[in-house]
């Protein structure tokens, strides 16, 4: 289940400093808000990831720490078998830790396109940062209660997508759906945002459902259980040693 996903699922962990109602009509400005919606100085969060495939189903519970766009630390809490498995990403490098064999393995570039923990997301998604407004040309259209943002990649943008679309609610200015299209205009995957909750002052969709449309029976659902933003994180969080620490 390897999919190149441009829009960063994991940057969703990093949320904006403050929520503000924004009434600007300019499409680019709105996109900047989308971009910024997913940024923050730091975050700590607990979440559940449910992976559904035709052959098996799993639900992982994880804790994550992020700092800026470069550093990410994720630790799996459940199920039992995978408890303690951890991923550290610093800049463009990534390591995995497996408690059962007590080894830290650097993820080789060839595995970067591989899926993270069997989900529909790749290791690469953790690594690359994408600023949508810098890499896409955007236009806005009003559709009922929502805005539809249409993003077309710029000349030099390295992406497989021909088009990305956001459906954003006019009131909350939070996304409802993000769709990815190939060059021929066929929707290949869709991410649905739902269940807007308040996380320590921040309102954002707690549930994200990722559905690859060209593979039947596959789905990944991420639910935020808890989240805190812009807190001080110690220097020892984003270290290799932390991977192996007892918790």
């Amino acid at each position, binding site marked *: 289940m390897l999919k190149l996903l441009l829009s960063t699922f994991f940057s969703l962990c990093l949320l904006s400093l403050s929520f503000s109602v924004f009434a600007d009509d300019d499409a680019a400005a709105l996109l900047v808000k989308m971009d910024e919606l997913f940024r923050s100085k730091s975050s700590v969060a607990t979440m559940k990831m449910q992976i559904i495939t035709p052959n098996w189903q799993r639900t992982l519970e994880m804790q994550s720490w992020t700092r800026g766009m470069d550093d990410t630390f994720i630790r799996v809490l459940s199920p039992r078998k995978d408890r303690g498995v951890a991923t550290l990403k610093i800049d463009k490098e990534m390591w995995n830790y497996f408690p059962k064999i007590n080894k830290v393995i650097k993820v*080789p570039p060839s595995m970067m*396109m591989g899926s993270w923990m069997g989900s529909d997301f790749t290791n690469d998604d953790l690594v690359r940062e994408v600023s949508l407004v810098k890499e896409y040309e955007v236009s806005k259209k009003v559709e009922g209660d929502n805005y539809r943002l249409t993003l077309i990649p710029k000349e030099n943008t390295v992406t*497989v997508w021909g088009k990305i679309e956001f459906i954003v609610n006019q009131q909350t200015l939070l996304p409802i759906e993000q769709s990815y299209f190939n*060059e021929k205009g066929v929707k290949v995957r869709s991410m649905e945002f739902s269940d807007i909750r308040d996380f320590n002052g921040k309102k954002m969709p707690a549930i994200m459902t990722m559905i690859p449309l060209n593979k039947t029976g596959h789905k990944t659902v991420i639910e935020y259980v808890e989240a805190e933003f812009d807190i001080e994180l110690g220097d020892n969080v984003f270290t290799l040693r932390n991977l192996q620490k007892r918790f």
Partner: protein
Amino acid sequence: MMNNQTLLTITNKQNTHRNNTGLVSRLAKRSIFRNTRRTLLTVLLISCSLTAILFTDAFVRGMVNTMVKISTQTFLGEGQIHQKGFREANDIDLYIKDTPRLYQQLDTVSEIQAYAPRVLAGAMTSSSENVASAIIYGVDANKEASVSKLKLAMTQGDYLSGVDGEIILGEQLADLLEISLGDRLVVTVSEAHGGDLSQALFRVSGLFSFNERTMDIGMAFINLSQGQTLLNITGVHEIALRLQELNQADDKTLAFWTVLNTEQLETLSWQELVPQLSSMLAMTEYSTLIVSVIMYLLVCLGLINTMFMSIFERQTEFGILLAIGTRSKQLFYQIMLEGLFIGLLSVVLGLLLALVLCYWGSIVGIDYSELEMSGLTLNEPIYLVLDVSSFALMGLATLAITLISCIYPALHAARLQPSSAMRKTL
């Protein structure tokens, strides 16, 4: 005086002798054509056998040639140059540096007809639908076309033309990624010296098919300069060579082999690069040898048989000849001469027929294109190879055997008792 009479007798004797030799050969010629059917049958057998053997010889030579050409000219090249150590694990850090000087050197070697520099690395290719691993080759479009069949293998779209962003894929890879001409393709590699991830966007500019699964599903080609940028190197990993003559690859005494094998560089011929191929060829050669020996034995058998038969059937004839006073020696010579004539006639006919057949075969070729052979696809017909030495050798050998097989029956005929020979049995 004795003079006139002696002179006359001597001249008579000489004339008679001359007449006798002339007579024997005239008789030989006449008896051959008297029973045309018998002669025809004999000649036919001998010439057909000769043609058959020569045809097989040409065919096998052609087959071997084709097999070698297919593997070397499709993509491998007749020789390759690498940085020492590269071939063990295809480590992209081990690339040939200082290429301008090397190219100059290659230009001066007369045996090298053309060379194609390449960078190569394992990569992940991603489309909107799927991700697949493949080997990415960065090639110089023109140089590559003069060494390998890449340009000829194009089935859709355009060949590389040096513009960044171009990529050509194998048809099966395109199928796997569910993309077609003009679609986006992102290639991810890890750079040399450090392994940082490097990505670039390409648009599918063309598709190729070598009719070989591993190549069509596992390879993609981009322009050399872009490949070098992507991998962050200034040299190349591999230089494929096309030599003027195929057999120069065997000849390790040629100067350039030593010159191009230094502390840094390793230059190998195709036999060393793909030893399985030479093994397969050795196997084929050996079994061909055995089959040829058997074939030749068969032909000899047929020859001897035919000559025996044709002579033994004419017992009555010989009886009559002996009865009217032909000397045994003369009869022997006559039969031997007949054999010689028949032999010559058959060999000439056989050689001509073989020449026509093999010439046709070398131009038109025999088409085997649906089948793979030894992991290579025969996408070229087999052209027969005429070998003058084979023709000469087989021709002479056949003539020799024909003559030798006449000896016993001729001896037998010469020693016949006229009376018993002429006793016609029913």
